[in-house]
């Protein structure tokens, strides 16, 4: 004896909606947000320290928001660059969400900021599902993590606009196989650019900053096949519930809610 109410809504619709709003707002403020994703310790903060310094050197006002489960260590490291920096403590949450971002973007970063780097919580699984309103998503991995990381974490690497291989200064010692890595990236994200960086030698830092500034100037980043046009662009449009209540007892007196055929006519429209 029950009725079924169609909802047809993305579980993360709220986050997606907030992120879309943030993207518009940041755009209006002339700020390009860059979401940096990697497993813990891949060198996000080390790379950001250099990026902030080089941006300052080129006269590009940049700021950074860094998220961690605990400690303000990363913010302290980044603040040495002189750029505006904020630490987000996620309070145990394994990823950043758009709502947290928004809370930190009221009146910050200062007017005139061109680039906002967002260092996500070190994690290759959870942050991948959360749009933060970024214009560019950069996914990093270091030479010691294994060439097949991209295939093991297809959602993270598959949704990257740009992939960075970090700590290349120790690639030799790690016996890193560049071809195997390139193949692994191409499997999950055909056509994505891969930059090689080292925070020790400074390799690739300027190239990475160039890519970021190109997006600031309006160039469209690589669109990952995994993002799927439909999947992305239609996600926010299903916030409305439509009523389809009907008593079902006469049809399926003891129907298990999830049983086969429990929902006649609820099939998805063909594509």
């Amino acid at each position: 004896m029950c009725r079924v109410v169609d909802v047809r809504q993305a579980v993360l619709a709220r986050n997606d909606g907030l992120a879309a709003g943030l993207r518009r707002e940041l755009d209006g403020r002339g700020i390009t947000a860059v979401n940096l994703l990697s497993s813990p310790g891949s060198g996000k903060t080390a790379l950001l320290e250099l990026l902030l310094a080089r941006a300052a050197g080129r006269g590009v006002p940049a700021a950074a928001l860094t998220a961690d489960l605990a400690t303000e260590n990363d913010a302290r490291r980044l603040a040495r660059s002189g750029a505006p920096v904020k630490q987000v403590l996620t309070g145990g949450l394994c990823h950043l969400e758009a709502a947290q971002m928004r809370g930190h973007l009221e009146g910050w970063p200062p007017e005139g900021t061109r680039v906002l780097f967002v260092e996500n919580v070190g994690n290759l699984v959870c942050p991948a599902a959360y749009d933060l309103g970024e214009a560019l998503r950069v996914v990093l991995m270091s030479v010691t993590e294994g060439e097949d990381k991209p295939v093991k974490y297809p959602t993270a690497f598959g949704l990257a606009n740009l992939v960075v291989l970090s700590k290349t200064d120790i690639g030799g010692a790690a016996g890193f196989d560049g071809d195997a890595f390139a193949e692994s990236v191409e499997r999950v994200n055909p056509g994505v650019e891969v930059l090689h960086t080292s925070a020790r030698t400074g390799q690739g830092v300027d190239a990475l900053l160039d890519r970021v500034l190109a997006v600031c100037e309006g160039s469209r980043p690589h669109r990952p096949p995994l993002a799927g046009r439909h999947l992305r662009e239609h996600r926010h449009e299903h916030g409305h519930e439509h009523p389809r209540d009907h008593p079902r007892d006469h049809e399926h007196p003891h129907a298990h809610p999830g049983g086969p055929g429990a929902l006649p006519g609820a099939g998805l429209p063909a594509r």
Partner: protein
Amino acid sequence: MHELSIAAAVVESAQDTARRHGASSVEAVRLRVGELSGVVADALRFSFEVVTEGTELAGAELVIEDVPARARCAACALEFAPGVPLRLWCPECGEGATELVAGRELEIVDVTLPLAGASCDGGSAPQGERQGGIV
């Protein structure tokens, strides 16, 4: 383990639906979970139990429909299963210009409410509109 956050979002949405339909409990929530959504069904079930405790969703069933991944080749229009481990290259013409058409879904399909609620007579349901093209 972001399944806890996902479960919380599911519960929030289902509560909202129940309230709008005057129901004080929920029988079941049905989700579509894509193969590439990054969500582990078992972890989600466990999280759902934890999050629903003490709410009007306590004891509600979580029904998970798996959605297999499908990709389409931009060059030859072939639709194919990109597989596990993932490979988004067209198996037919070798093109890398492909696009995922299914497999990242993470959506609430419907919520099952008990018939005893206030709004179960025909025509008393709240306003809403049908939307096409669900993914």
